[in-house]
């Protein structure tokens, strides 16, 4: 490891965390990111690369990385695992057809060595859509109860209305804080 990499790891500022937001395409990752940031969400097109936003939340600096979810792009996800404090897995709760695909992709991530120790927040998004599954149904469909390797929480939400986005983020920040910053 070279000098710059060493310095970066050493000087990671207090109260600064890195969140990696992944999920199948059309789950609403970029919409969540923009909603958080108070931006217009009417003209969002499919992400073909990645977006980064830095937000302040309750005294924490959150660096959120949102990476495109199309099938052909998922092999790039691993380039963004390094130093991730929390994985935010976004689910389109109305997309019943792809729940199995969604489950497989999530569980594949959980065995990644570089994501070991990361907090897992599952956003059961699109609760504003008629016919969307509840958080409890998503929890069963994704077999979340089998996860023993990560702290996890599932939060129902709507990126469009903004409902419960902050609840989820509060939990993530609290969980990371109790894990990392109390060690100093």
């Amino acid at each position: 490891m070279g000098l710059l990499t060493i310095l970066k790891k050493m000087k990671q500022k207090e109260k600064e965390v890195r969140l990696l937001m992944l999920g199948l395409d059309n789950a609403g990752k970029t919409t969540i990111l923009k909603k958080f940031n108070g931006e217009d969400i009417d003209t969002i097109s499919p992400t073909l690369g990645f977006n980064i936003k830095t937000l302040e939340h309750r005294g924490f600096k959150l660096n959120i990385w949102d990476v495109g979810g199309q099938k052909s792009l998922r092999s790039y996800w691993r380039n963004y695992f390094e130093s991730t404090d929390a994985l935010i897995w976004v689910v389109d709760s109305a997309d019943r057809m792809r729940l199995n695909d969604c489950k497989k992709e999530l569980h594949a991530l959980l065995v990644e060595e570089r994501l070991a120790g990361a907090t897992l927040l599952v956003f059961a998004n699109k609760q504003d859509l008629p016919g969307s599954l509840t958080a409890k149904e998503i929890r069963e469909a994704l077999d979340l109860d089998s996860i023993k390797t990560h702290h996890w929480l599932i939060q129902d939400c709507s990126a469009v209305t903004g409902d419960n986005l902050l609840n989820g983020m509060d939990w993530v920040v609290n969980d990371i804080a109790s894990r990392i910053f109390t060690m100093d």
Partner: protein
Amino acid sequence: MSSNGNNHLQSAMDSNDDGIEDMDFSHGDHFEEEDLAMGASSKDSGFDSVIGHIEDIIMEESFQSTQNGFLEKYYTEFEDTEENKFCYTDIHKEYISLIETYLDSELKKRIPDFSMPEFSKQLQERRKELEGEIFEILLTFSDFMAFKEMLLDYKADKEGKTIDLSGGLTVMPVQEKLSLDGDSPFCVSGKSLHGP
């Protein structure tokens, strides 16, 4: 890189905890000097001298031209849009590696027995007291957003000049071409940019 790197850092930290310095005895002269000076002050001056050399190195013209060569090679890949292309990540990695290799080889030229692992250990010991512009600069090298901004600034400079030179010519075909290229998330030019 990650797991080895972490182990390395971890072992460097472990050796601090027990209060005993692991010294590199492979250089006879170095050992004599440390022994006579009884540790701390000599080690501080050694550390400070490395920092001084790093400051010199990044101020020099040859560093600037190395950096400019890199910018020149890749600036056309970058576009002033919010969304980032995957290839930016590869280009940034290559940049970090270029700067690290450059610093390492320049330090070795100036300090014959320079050892990066040893210097890293010293950095670890001083992690709470690393203040000053030089550390901000070094951290900026590995910051992705700062890197993107540098490339876009360079691109704006270059393209500003291009427009000056082409005054009176129509630039429409160029714009069309740019917008076509812009639709692709992948880089279509430049070498050594591999997908996984």
